[in-house]
């Protein structure tokens, strides 16, 4: 068992869910495949999906919903 961190490819605001009233993309304990969407980053009024770049189980969200993030910041931790 190892761990892997999914990082942000752009600065902006991180969202756990596709829209304010929707369910989160993933929750702690969920298993994700490579390429699954785990969040959304808003940059300059455009939205970019954050994709898992490895398969695993979500062990932690490292950023709260609607928090500001920088480029390269760790967003989601996976147990691989």
């Amino acid at each position, binding site marked *: 068992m190892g761990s892997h961190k999914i990082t942000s490819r752009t*600065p*902006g*605001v991180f969202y756990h869910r596709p*829209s304010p009233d929707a369910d989160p993309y993933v929750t702690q304990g969920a298993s994700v495949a490579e390429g699954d969407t785990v969040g959304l980053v*808003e940059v*300059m*009024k*455009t939205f970019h999906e954050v994709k898992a770049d490895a398969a695993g189980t979500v062990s932690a969200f490292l950023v709260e919903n*609607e928090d*500001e993030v920088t480029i390269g910041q760790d967003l989601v931790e996976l147990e691989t």
Partner: protein
Amino acid sequence: MTLSSVLIANRGEIALRVVRACRELGIRAVAIYSDADAEAAHVRMADDAVHLGKSSASKSYLNADAVLAAARSSGVDAVHPGYGFLSERPAFAAAVEEAGLVFVGPPSSVIATMGDKAAARALARSADVPVVPGSDEVASVDDAVAAAEEVGYPVLVKASAGGGGRGIRPASSADELREVVVEAQREAASAFGSDAVYLERALQGPKHVEVQVLADTHGNVVHCFERECSLQRRRQKILEEAPAPGLSAALREALCDAAVRLSREVGYVGAGTVEFLVEGSEYYFIEMNTRIQVEHPITEWVTGLDLVAEQLRIAGGAELSVGQDDIACRGASIEFRVNAEDPDADFMPSPGEVTGLELPGGPGVRVDTALMAGDVVPPFYDSLVAKLSVWAPTRAEALARGRRALAEYRVDGLPTTIGLHRRLLDDQAVVDGTYDITTLESWLAERSP
């Protein structure tokens, strides 16, 4: 009454534009700012500034309660909304009115009417202003298919509460329409809080021409001629010019008269823009923007008016400083929007630090920007960072001046749309002024790898 102090409920270049107009009129300018903008030019140059909150737009410039609290605590007598953010939200304008302050713009009821596409179309019809053939709101997929038979394919499905080009989907057959209506209703519900949609005939390569109007509280309404804004990507304008090249005198007069009629019909107050699609000798009203427009400098160049100063005078209860006969359109002006986007990477936003900056200057050149060397372009707001506009006695000279100014313009540290503009000015359709709303996207598609 004349205004003595104004809260500027915006950021970036437009906030700075309003600060400058206030200072020239002797009005105290109060800025607002988020964490990311603590050192920003619009804050530094204002007389006073109120901190709103965290950087994200929803926690700062879009937080109506925080903006209203700033207005109350700073003792201003008016609020200027700029463009974007809260500028076209009727509830915000109404809250400003209820707080006993002057909203620099039309009454909240007018914003509400013009912000409702169906209501605006109905109003246009009653003012004898042509609208694109279309339907009323459609309640179901079957209703939409029936309505499309009347309107004629291809159609656009539009959200009644949409705006800024968002919430619009094309369909060229009944089968496609059945799918698109469902998607459009769902998207409209989540983006705009209402799933109401209607249909409009999709025109084939029209031009986007808009008319600037000014109206005071004494019943005076004038137009300030037109702007040609067809060069758009994903319905976002990138380059605008005035006057519209190739527009006949008869059509110009018809458009300007229609804009004034519509403004009178709705009881407009302030600066506003009536947008039309023009195809051949036909023109159709599409929407009215009830605020100052990004591209207002080109109208200021060709008319000599100061549109932001007019807004502030009107809000203070003064009559317009000019009558219709005093307003002439002289020479030609072009605006180039400088966005922090990478045209070579599908216009990916490019926030970051500006490590070096050289602005163009010389005769007939104006730069509206709040971006200074060493500033960081934050990722939280619109990508527009500057507007370069030029004026010259003729359109050919304005094009030459634009090329010259763009060659002087240097931004280091992040990609912008400056290079795109340089290439666009070599395009024959741009040089000839024959481009339409499909031109830029085809041009980009031909050049994409």
